[in-house]
């Protein structure tokens, strides 16, 4: 899978928040085989670089880091946070979040498009956290995004793919844009379902971090992502209404 010109081995992206400890986070990352880790920047940490101990632990895992603007509610806040993140992490990659609603953490898609344009012009390579809306997706691509990350369900809910039709449409409309389902994944079956739809990757955090055994769950997601991708490439059958016997009738003994 190629994202902004970088070849990534794994189709699982993992967030780094909410784990019981950094040691368990490190073990979970290894078990997941994740190719990219997202890291949120607390602005107070970024300014004084006092959060460097935690970043140091993540850097030591030798996995590509995707900084994000988690918790930003305005274009200005997101742009400022992005600039700090670039300085702290030394990468132009950025997961862009502009939250529009405090309860659902739904993206503010208008602010998202605006921030994506500003940041792309500033040299960032933006991974926008968006909804499955096709028109917003068009605007994000016009703004310079070369990857799209629609939600499966609101962040942290674990509800899975809330709008399979919308996600399928998005895939059909953008066959050549890398698409990553970001947020709402609760179980490995959700991740497999996203991959079976032809999504290029999934991004999740809470489902692993808050599991009773995060390391085992990370391994389960690794398998599910691989299974879903393999199934997609194997061209699954279409569902149909009419039952069809899998054993041929021809040649069966006739008792009449």
């Amino acid at each position, binding site marked *: 899978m190629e994202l902004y010109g970088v070849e990534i081995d794994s189709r699982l992206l993992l967030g780094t928040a909410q784990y*019981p*400890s950094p040691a368990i986070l490190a073990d979970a990352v290894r078990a997941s085989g994740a190719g990219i880790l997202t890291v949120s920047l*607390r602005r107070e940490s970024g300014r*004084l670089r006092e*959060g460097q101990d*935690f970043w140091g632990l993540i850097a030591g895992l030798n996995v590509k880091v995707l900084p994000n603007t988690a918790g930003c509610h305005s274009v200005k806040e997101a742009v400022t946070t992005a600039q700090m993140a670039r300085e702290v992490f030394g990468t132009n990659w950025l997961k862009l979040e502009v939250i529009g609603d405090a309860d659902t953490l739904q993206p503010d898609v208008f602010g998202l498009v605006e921030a994506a344009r500003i940041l792309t012009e500033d040299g960032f390579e933006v991974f926008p956290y968006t909804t499955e809306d096709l028109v917003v997706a068009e605007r994000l691509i016009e703004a310079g995004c070369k990857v799209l990350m629609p939600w499966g369900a609101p962040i942290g809910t674990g509800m899975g793919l809330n709008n399979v039709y919308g996600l399928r449409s998005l895939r059909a409309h953008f066959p050549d844009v890398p698409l990553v389902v970001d947020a709402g994944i609760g179980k490995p079956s959700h991740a497999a379902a996203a991959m079976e739809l032809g999504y290029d990757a999934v991004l999740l955090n809470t489902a692993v971090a808050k599991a009773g055994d995060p390391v085992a769950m990370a391994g389960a997601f690794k398998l599910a992502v691989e299974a879903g991708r393999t199934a997609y490439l194997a061209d699954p059958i279409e569902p149909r209404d009419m039952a069809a016997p899998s054993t041929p009738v021809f040649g069966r003994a006739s008792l009449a």
Partner: protein
Amino acid sequence: MAAQTRVTVLGAGVAGLTTAVELAERGADVTVLERGARVGERACSWSAGGMLAPWCERESAEEAVIAGGEVALDWWPAHVDGVVRQGTLVVAPARDSAELARFARRTSRFETLDGDGVAALEPDLAGRFRSGLFFPDEAHLDPRAALAGLEARLAALGGRIRFGVEADADGAEGDAVVDCRGFAAREAFPDLRGVRGEMLVVRTRDIAFQRPVRLLHPRIPFYVVPRADGLFMLGATMIESAERRGPVVRSVVDLLNAAYALHPAFGEAEIVETRADVRPAFPDNLPRVETRGRVTYVNGLYRHGFLLSPACARAAADAVLGPKEMSHEADRERRRA
């Protein structure tokens, strides 16, 4: 009479004072060096909640907190006044009842309560929560009173604290040194990190709790610890940062919103204090007691200063005074004499 082993303890936070008292009780001549002007002035344990809650903490901590916590439940009442063994109550808003189920799956030694059960324990919460978990074997204390109690206990045992002294392990006098400086000793541990915490103290006479109450919330895990004189400690944030400036508005808003959700009377409480500090933590969030030459380090107590310091103090005293861990031939000879 045998000559006493002279031990210098660096730091008069909870790790330093528990270690100093444990050493003095085992016969050592103990001097504590503290950079602050008085106990607590520059110790992160001054900001602690003071919950002795190993079974609750197991929700997100390793199994080792339970054994260490059981030591603490015996050690503290034997050393200071004011340890209240009334358990811990855990509740969640109806919307977040799944959080309560999850908490129950990860923990042990609790009773499941219905709304009447919650009200029977804490009458001020009557009608507010339909279910809860009660951890009857847990306890709490006032960290500031407990540190003062240890200071007095140490003095009674003949130990002393020298304030306003910045010292490191190499320069300290004594047969042995125990470095309990927390995050200030980070040069000794490349993998020690800071985890920032913010807390408030409020005062209200409209609420009376017998025990710490935890409110589960998917975004803001929150607890209230009752103290004397209508005071309540509200805590605490967990931020991967070693920054020491005062509490930020967002954290204070989150903590106060949670308090208000627990009981609306907190809306009228007086804000007495806000405070932020940095917890020392290792990657597994468990403490270490480690001896290098004549220096024993106690560090990484994370959010478990009062819960795990007694077990660490015992291990440190074993390392300094116990015959198996003796690193100094001279000390061994002296004690035999």
